[in-house]
């Protein structure tokens, strides 16, 4: 049976866009405190897999259990509060200031009192060194600043799991470091994390498990040392030869 530290169970997940089959039966289990890095060639379905977890893409078939509860169209909205997501293109709400972006979910979902939320926003912004940007609109921030605000926004509801969809792919090399160190810090605090990334050294450093996806299936998974130094499948060997 499932132990109580299991966050997420995915059984036989399929996703198609029209006739295009992207995910072809993914089975996956996520345990509290794990940091899973999803690797794979482009077009392999790794982002789609991540986006299916909080139903940014509605799965075509398969079952998902979050905290032991079967995820359905009815309860997905409530479940999403426990799954933070950070996007490649930040997706800060452009008609709202940084402060308003961070206050949005706690206020609209009535999960915090205003002064309590404001205090939390200020503490978090101070922590990432962007308190002076509280009243700025996203358009006036740099990419790295936007992504750090986006990470803080995902943390506002204290989710159980954080999903990162290529969080540094749209950033300049200098900002990448800032964003990665913020993710690293969350990892050190024991956050359960899933990341799709192309930053191999970061993957090696942060992951407790690597999952390799190709053609919509998980082909290989394991601890990072094992995965990078003794890959089992030919496909992964070939992939690592190209990227390392």
């Amino acid at each position, binding site marked *: 049976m499932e132990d109580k530290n299991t966050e997420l169970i995915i059984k036989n997940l399929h996703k198609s866009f029209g006739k295009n089959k992207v995910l072809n039966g993914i089975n996956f289990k996520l345990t509290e405190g794990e940091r899973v890095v999803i690797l794979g060639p482009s077009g392999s379905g790794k982002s789609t897999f991540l986006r299916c977890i909080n139903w*940014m893409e509605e799965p075509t078939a398969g079952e998902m259990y979050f905290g032991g509860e079967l995820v359905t169209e009815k309860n997905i*909205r409530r479940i999403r509060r426990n799954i*933070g997501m950070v*996007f490649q293109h930040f*997706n800060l*709400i452009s*008609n709202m200031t940084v402060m308003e972006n961070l206050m*949005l*979910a706690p206020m609209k*979902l009535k999960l915090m009192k205003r002064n309590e939320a404001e205090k939390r926003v200020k503490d978090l912004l101070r922590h990432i060194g962007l308190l002076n940007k509280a009243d700025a609109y996203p358009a006036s921030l740099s990419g790295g600043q936007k992504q750090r605000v986006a990470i803080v926004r995902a943390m506002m509801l204290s989710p159980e799991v954080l999903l990162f969809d290529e969080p540094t792919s749209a950033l300049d090399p200098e900002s990448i470091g800032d964003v990665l160190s913020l993710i690293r810090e969350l990892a050190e605090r024991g956050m359960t994390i899933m990341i799709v990334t192309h930053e191999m050294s970061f993957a090696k450093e942060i992951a407790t498990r690597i999952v390799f996806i190709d053609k919509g299936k998980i082909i290989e998974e394991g601890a990072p040392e094992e995965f990078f130094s003794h890959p089992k499948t030919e496909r992964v060997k070939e992939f690592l030869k190209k990227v390392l």
Partner: protein
Amino acid sequence: MNDFFSKVVELFSTPEYIDSLLHGFLLTIQIAYFALLIGITLGTIIALVDVAKPSRWLVVPKFICRVYTTIIRGTPMALQLFIMFFIIFAIKGFPSIITAIIAFGLNSAAYTAEVVRGGILSVDAGQTEAGLALGLSRRTIFFKIVAPQAIKNIIPAMGNEIITVIKETAIVSMVGMYDLNMAAKDIGSGQNMASYIVPMFVAALFYLAIIYLITFAVKQVEKSLRKSDLRAEK
């Protein structure tokens, strides 16, 4: 040239002519105003139905909206006006101003629908995704995130539609209504000034004045809505 100026003096010194122009102008404004009210309301509803997430409840409404905009945009306004006057509202005693308002309102709705639809679709899908990922309802996402951003894209095109409707109302003279265009024609006719040039120019100035005013107002609204853009800070 001397003749032109004497005609100008004649027009402005004859109270009946001024009165006719103002009456015509008032009718033009009334038709345009109420037609735009109908157009914007109905057009927004059509656009919302069109961009709403497909569901089986919306299959028929979506189909109706699409057919509606296709027919309205695919036929001349003048013809639509004639059909309204001589077929649908050909009831004796039905006030012609109401018929005209309905005709222009229904026409404007189809164009407004396209403007609003385009505005909503121009908002980056990532904005909606951010809201969904935070667990917000579609309703909250629409009103707090998508609509405020869509309006910025809608306002300039909407200003264009307002201007188009005001000018297009001039065709009501074809069904015998006394609008600004008709007033100019009437004042210039044989039994009055017997010269079209001055009244036509004055009528043109009336149209130009109101449209200039609207353009200015739309620019102001646009400016105030662009607060969150970098463009406004420069």
